[in-house]
């Protein structure tokens, strides 16, 4: 059995290489099956069925998610300048170096090309404030990969979303730096908040404005992204474009953004109907803060979300409920990170209790 698998992977390695560059002809190997019949003296592949597989694979999924974040990266550069590029690339580089070093220490095969470390670095950078020091980005990335992922055994074994865990670490370590905001380059304050004095609102996010100043931001700048906030979270337009791209490719479970955003809209909407003067509208909830980034790119992380359909609904609706509670009643203006991390922690339990009935199973 082992021998067969080896042959298969050897062959496939040859196959996958050929389109890129011409490799010299592989050395003929001695195969015990050579004495048997085979077309023109080549051994037939032996393996257990099925003999065909989906064209999807893990690296493809990871790189597609990264690709889907391109609009958000462009948005970050447009609104916060070239420092965004610097932060993002440093963060990615730090994540990849950490991954490489730790896999070497663990004597595991290199996993850089599966794209997961790249994605973690990218996601982490997009959740950081534009003023955050670059050295902090490195620290966050190292933590995200080392403690968030590799310590559990690498890709597929982690309980929490590594990027969010990295961010939580930074938030706990540098609370002031993590909540120091700047306005985007093209911000026209009067036009979008209706506030008269620029000083009162300089450098705050729409959610912060709401929490501490009771100022409502208009919807249009929220949608375009011309507001204060983390690098990649401000532009709803860019995030929606990337998110829909992911859903079309089916590299994200549609139930998660639908459940997450839907429950935020419903629970937020209930409070809004109670008193629209205090509580923001559901649309404001949806477009502000890191919700879209979280709902499309972080909550949908396959590793840390449930595998059952029922479980996925519980997970996404639960995250929405927690988010609304934190935003409206918690000490922090924003709660996407904690709502997702909390539901990540519950995922093993959710999986356990939402096992589907077997076909034809009688269960009360």
């Amino acid at each position, binding site marked *: 059995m082992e021998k067969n698998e080896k042959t298969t992977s050897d*062959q496939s390695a040859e196959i996958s290489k050929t389109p890129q560059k011409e490799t010299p002809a592989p050395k003929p190997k001695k195969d015990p099956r050579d004495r048997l019949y085979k077309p*023109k003296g080549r051994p037939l592949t032996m393996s257990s069925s099925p*003999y065909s597989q989906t064209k999807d694979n893990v690296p493809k999924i990871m790189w597609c998610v990264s690709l889907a974040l391109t609009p958000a990266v462009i948005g970050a550069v447009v609104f916060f300048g070239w420092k965004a590029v610097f932060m993002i690339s440093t963060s990615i580089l730090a994540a990849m170096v950490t991954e490489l070093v730790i896999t070497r220490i663990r004597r595991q095969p290199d996993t850089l090309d599966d794209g997961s470390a790249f994605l973690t670095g990218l996601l982490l950078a997009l959740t950081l404030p534009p003023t955050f020091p670059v050295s902090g980005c490195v620290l966050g990335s190292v933590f995200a990969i080392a403690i968030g992922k590799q310590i559990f055994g690498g*890709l597929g074994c982690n309980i929490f979303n590594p990027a969010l865990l990295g961010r939580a670490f930074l938030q706990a370590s540098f609370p002031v730096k993590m909540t120091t905001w700047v306005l985007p380059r093209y911000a026209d304050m009067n036009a979008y908040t209706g506030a008269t004095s620029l000083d009162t609102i300089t450098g705050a996010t729409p959610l912060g404005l709401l929490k501490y100043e009771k100022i409502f931001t208009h919807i249009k700048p929220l949608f375009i992204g011309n507001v204060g906030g983390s690098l990649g979270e401000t532009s709803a337009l860019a995030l929606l474009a990337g998110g829909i791209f992911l859903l079309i490719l089916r590299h994200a479970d549609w139930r998660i953004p639908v459940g997450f955003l839907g429950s935020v809209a419903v629970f937020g909407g209930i409070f809004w109907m109670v008193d629209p003067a205090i509580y923001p509208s559901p649309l404001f909830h949806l477009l502000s803060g890191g919700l879209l980034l979280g709902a499309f790119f972080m909550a949908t992380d396959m590793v840390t979300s449930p*595998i*059952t359909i029922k479980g996925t609904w519980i997970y996404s609706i639960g995250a929405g409920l927690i988010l609304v509670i934190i935003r409206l009643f918690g000490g922090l203006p924003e709660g996407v990170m904690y709502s997702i991390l909390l539901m990540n922690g519950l995922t093993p339990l959710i999986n356990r209790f939402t096992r589907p*009935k077997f*076909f034809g199973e*009688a269960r009360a």
Partner: protein
Amino acid sequence: MKLRTFKKGIHLAEYKEFSHDKKIEQMPLPEQVYIPLQQHIGAPCEPLVKKGDTVKTGQVIGRSSAYVSAPVHASITGVVKAVDKFPHPLGMRVEMVHIERTGDEDDWELLSIPENWEKAPRVELIKLINEAGIVGMGGAAFPTHVKLNPPGDKKIDSFILNGVECEPYLTSDHRLMVEYTDQILAGMNIIMSLLNVENGYIGIEDNKPDAIEMMSKRVKDLGYSFQVVPLEVKYPQGAEKMLIESVLHRKVPAGGLPMDVGVVVNNVATAKAVADAVLEGKPLVERVTTVTGDGIIHPKNLLTRIGTPFNDLVEFCGGVKDETTIVFMGGPMMGQAQYDLSVPVIKAAGGIVCNTSKMITMVEHFPCIRCGACVDACPMYLLPTKLAKLTEHKKYEEAEKLGIQNCIECGSCAFSCPAHIPLVQWLRVGKMRVSELKRKQKAS
């Protein structure tokens, strides 16, 4: 019109275009045949012939006294060269009767059949079907006479003829339905009267419009009351439990059999074999096998004698291309890879597929990222990734609790896994180990 179907499952590339419009061709009589003494689920047969005996086509050469078994017949007229172990397409070496053809004559030894089967006693007909060595020809090879004789406490009210053929590449059932329509319907009629049921359904996947049309037309012409049911093209539509759900919206209980919900299912090739046996007295010595794949020069549907070596069929189809890297019996989802093409065609061999490396996408596998694709695909509502992991860690008891024995090994999970983890392969191991464990517990 919305097509009937079951929940979950996967959509596959069909690759039926290689052979779906190729008329069934009669293979010339083979020089040698190797007839395995076990081609069915149940007790293996004892050989009734020895080296040097002359045998006629259709002569019984092996039988067992067990109830769940089916006799095997010589498929050509000739001399027994050996009764020995030879490679079997399902792996391992199995006892087979090696017959060499003498001359060109093809002397048949037919079964004695009643003049009018409708008046013959039921027991006699079921015995005749057993004598003809008929087994389920869709792949499982369960002896048909056992299926047609359900225990008295099971009330059977419906019969479904399985013309789904959901495996990619295979077209033998498709061609049978188009070219041997009347025989199939006659066989279905016999089976239904043996089961004493009124409701007959013919399930055919929607990708075979000519078969649906032909079957509907002949059902009408011949005045049968059967209902042709077009089904959505989805894998594994042809699995017994899925087919019953699709056609009748009944769910076979976990661990149960179709008869528990009052249904019997048979394959179209089996129905034709029943008609051949009851109407003409011909035992099961030949079947239609598709020889296809992108590695075959001229893909064909062949009417071939049981026991013909794969080599003969492949050569008759013009041979294989040099780039051929894999040959399997059956479809790509549940078939068996072959290392030696001297193995014979058995009763359950629906096809021989020869593929080049272009058609197989086997790559290194990644760690499970818990995406849930296997859970979405599993038509039996299992958690394949979890069960595979439990098997890997030898936690068989927990795997059993999570329903590993319900797995029908359709391969949907392994197909859909983006990490290319051999899920169904692990599940097969797990099922085997759980059965062993149970047997041990019973023994002690």
